[in-house]
């Protein structure tokens, strides 16, 4: 099986490298993390002295959001490739090959999902801000990688072309800010419940021992609550992926 998927993965890497827009996207999260590392201390100092607001008290949340970033970007890359394939008719051709359409999707989405995990951890390392918590960071990076099929299939299922795809992505970018909803009070915070990233962030923050940042979460988990939040996040990703896959396959017919 791996020998069959190898050439598919190699072809995807080659196609990304040959597209000026797509080639830069895998590095965008790292560039964003680097920029934040340089800007945040300056901005935090400014806000503290002028407004008395301690931005660095939110470092855990910022770090969690940054770890999720690569999933979004890698999902966009996979989505644009799927969009091209759909328009060129190749997506239909795969159904008559031995790997079938399922193998083709698995190779593509698997490649970018797997790549998003180390990229998420690398973003955490580059950003710094808080001490490394390998297990929590890793769980967050895995949940971030689960965004890949969601973004990719959303693009391929709903965008008519690449230009429309870019517009859709601008709207979808809001989802990566969904973790901020954990800070919203009570019923307003529930707006974030259908969004997997919300539960990922809730788990990540719940995992911080004793909430040293004093963040007033809109949802509290007793005991091993972070695990429950992570599971909820994973389940929501699965539901969204299944629904979007169905929509995408219908569009191919």
């Amino acid at each position, binding site marked *: 099986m791996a020998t069959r998927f190898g050439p598919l993965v190699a*072809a995807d890497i*080659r196609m990304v490298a*040959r597209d000026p827009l797509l080639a830069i996207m895998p590095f965008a999260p790292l560039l964003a993390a680097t920029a934040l590392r340089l800007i945040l201390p300056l901005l935090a100092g400014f806000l503290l002295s002028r407004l008395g607001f301690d931005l660095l008290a939110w470092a855990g949340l910022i770090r969690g959001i940054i770890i999720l970033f690569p999933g979004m970007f890698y999902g966009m890359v996979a989505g644009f490739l799927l969009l091209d*394939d759909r328009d060129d008719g190749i997506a239909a*051709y795969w159904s008559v090959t*031995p*790997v*079938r359409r399922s193998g083709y999707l698995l190779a593509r989405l698997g490649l970018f999902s797997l790549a998003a995990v180390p990229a998420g951890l690398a973003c955490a390392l580059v950003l710094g801000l808080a001490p490394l918590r390998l297990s929590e960071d890793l769980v967050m990076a895995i949940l971030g990688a689960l965004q890949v099929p969601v973004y990719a299939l959303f693009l391929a299922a709903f965008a008519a072309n690449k230009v429309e795809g870019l517009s859709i992505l601008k709207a979808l970018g809001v989802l990566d800010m969904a973790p901020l909803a954990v800070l919203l009070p009570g019923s307003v915070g529930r707006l974030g419940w259908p969004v997997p990233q919300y539960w990922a962030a809730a788990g990540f923050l719940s995992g911080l021992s004793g909430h040293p940042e004093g963040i007033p979460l809109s949802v509290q988990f007793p005991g091993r609550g972070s695990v429950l939040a992570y599971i909820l996040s994973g389940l929501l990703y699965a539901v969204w992926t299944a629904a979007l896959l169905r929509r995408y396959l219908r569009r191919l017919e």
Partner: protein
Amino acid sequence: MIHVEALSYRYPRATVDAVRGISFSVGKGEVFGFLGPSGAGKSTTQKILMGSLAGYRGSAVTGGVEAGRADGSFRASIGVAFEFPCFYQKLTGMENLLLFSSLYPGPKDEPRALLDRLGLGEAADRRVGEYSKGMKMRLNLARALIHRPRMLFLDEPTSGLDPANARTVRELVLERAASGAAVFLTTHDMAAADALCDRVAFLVDGCIAACEAPAALKRRYGRQAVVVEHATPVGTPGGMPAAAPVEFPLAGLADNPAFLAELRKPGLVGVHTLDATLDRIFLELTGKELA
């Protein structure tokens, strides 16, 4: 190799069947033409045979496998060239060919030699995005052939090709048939069907109107006669019509004095049989144009 029995299919939400109880078979080494106008059910039938469309009624056995239960090994035994060639535009012709070839087990053709044969050797390392339609059509055939499939499904394989390349494509298809592959050819192109097919089936409104060897059809539907044509005599005043062609029945032609006299007249330019063309036969059988 392909055996279809009382095959019917209705698309979801459609009120009538797209394919209506058709039956035919294609033997090993046979080139079978599936001809008909757009919307007749050709593509639907082909999709069923390739294992891409489930939910049909009747039976469609391809390579010993019921198409509805087609698995990976079944798909490894077929080669497919869709009407509209689809490739990764940012990969070269060779990279595309190697990628798809890598999906299949077993012995394969040497890719460079195959591309050379199809006149794509020099363009092999150029990106497919720079290819003309004709070049993509030839690469399309190379992709269908490279893993030496036992069954070939070709949709309009000579569309958009110049005569020389069309001839190369026809030769390759005939070679594969000669080596034992069953070829299922879907086309509007009657000339290609005539040149390639051992048998053709005319499909109209989901039904097979006729299924026979092209030569037999042409004999049956043609007129058993020859036509003798003469050029307009030199010096004929302008505006005068050319000499009308004269028709003679084939029966007893060698002993027909009028025919022999006609041959002896000066200015003879041609003697033609009145075989029917496949287009005319289709029109006669179905009342529909093929285009």
